[in-house]
């Protein structure tokens, strides 16, 4: 049930940091799920409660994770590869910015007005575009404007979707 039987050498040491991390990841997620579902009734087979399946799945996840971590000590496998923050920050950040600005939001003292697609659209393209190593700013700005215009025409006018364009400026 595992990889590379030939490499199943004697002696215990970490032979695959990737598998070990994956196993621990599963155990942590299962732990989180068990914590979150601690107050849910398990119920009986006659009347299964809301907690029975989440807890059962979480325990199985934890078991599989433990097996995976255990196997990482016995079988050789891949190493953990490096992590690139540049993509994570710009690409995912761009999507979050879109979500926050398209209709506006309020978190405590922080208040962003409803900016609409005419602002959120270029923001997504510009911010995410910065993630590429070969980014060309001028090209990106033109592209952002073109994409937003295209999307506004397509989604708002051709398809008539109720997506706000620029409520602060145009009222729609």
């Amino acid at each position: 049930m595992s990889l590379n039987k030939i490499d199943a050498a004697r002696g215990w040491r970490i032979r695959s940091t990737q598998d070990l991390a994956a196993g621990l990841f599963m155990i942590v997620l299962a732990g989180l799920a068990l914590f979150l579902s601690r107050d849910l009734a398990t119920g009986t087979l006659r009347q299964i409660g809301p907690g029975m399946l989440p807890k059962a799945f979480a325990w199985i996840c934890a078991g599989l994770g433990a097996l995976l971590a255990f196997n990482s000590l016995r079988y050789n496998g891949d190493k953990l590869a490096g992590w690139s923050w540049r993509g994570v920050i710009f690409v995912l950040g761009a999507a979050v910015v879109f979500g926050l600005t398209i209709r506006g939001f309020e978190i405590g003292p922080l208040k962003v007005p409803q900016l609409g697609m005419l602002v959120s659209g270029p923001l997504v393209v510009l911010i995410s575009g910065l993630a590429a190593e070969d980014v060309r700013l001028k090209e990106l700005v033109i592209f952002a404007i073109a994409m937003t215009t295209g999307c506004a025409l397509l989604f708002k006018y051709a398809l008539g979707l109720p997506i706000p364009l620029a409520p602060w400026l145009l009222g729609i």
Partner: protein
Amino acid sequence: MKTLALGLAAALALALPAQAQSKYPERPITMIVPFAAGGPTDIIARIVSENMSKTLGQQIVVENVAGAGGTTGITRAVTAAPDGYTIAMGHLGTFSAAPATYPGLKYDPINGMQTIGLAGGTPILIVAKKAFAPKDLKEFVAYVKANSDKVNEAHAGVGSVSWTTCTLLKGQLGVPKLNSVAYRGTGPALNDLVSGQVDFMCDQIVSVAEQIKAGTIKAYAVASAERSPALPDVPTTKEAGLPEYQIEAWNGIAAPKGLPKEAVDKLVDALDKALNDETVKKRLLDLGTVLPTKEERTPAGFAALIKRDADKLSPVLSAAPKQ
């Protein structure tokens, strides 16, 4: 460049003091439907709003904001700016049942919003699988009470109209702990009722009428004051011997509290005109909808209806077994 300048000028003209004395409505109105496109509430919203747009002279854009039994969409609508550009089409569940069903509800349907008026009532039917033993409603009541451990009731999920109305029925029959089988929506529940996996359910006429006409399921009664023209052979609960079970799944329009009187009046008037329009009337009647009375088309009348049904439902729903 010229067009851009023109556009900016126009936008400024709109944004500047002109707004203070402008006539409502001067831009499209958003009607939030708190359910997915294509559902019963969405259909009524689209039929009514199309005609209201004509009266108001501005497009009403239907925006489907689904989630949490419709409470997500209503929350967004009634907490929006009270300028008349955001209104909502809610129903029995979101306005009358929600306070008892969702403890953390972020709006108050009785005191926290401006009602506009009722758009239509949808009769509720008690239906059962074809082979279910009881022949009529009286037998049904007796049978369910006597065999409460054997009977299976189906519903379309906690918070749905079918769950709400059936919970009321079970509460009135004194069998709140009857075996109840939850489905994700009316479709799958109806499927298992037709194939005889479950025994009975309560749901809106638009969902079950065709099955009753085809004879794949049978109807015991309609929980309205009068028989429905769509199913003239089905008796009312009053005629069939369970007069206290009276409930309708209505749909109605509400807006944020603090709406200017001008906007309220215009919306009420537009709704009334829509409901008097022959095409709208016919389309609503085809769906089995009961047209609202003159009284129910007013903000006060609609508010009274919400209050009445909330009072009827909340004791039963709060007591419903949720484990």
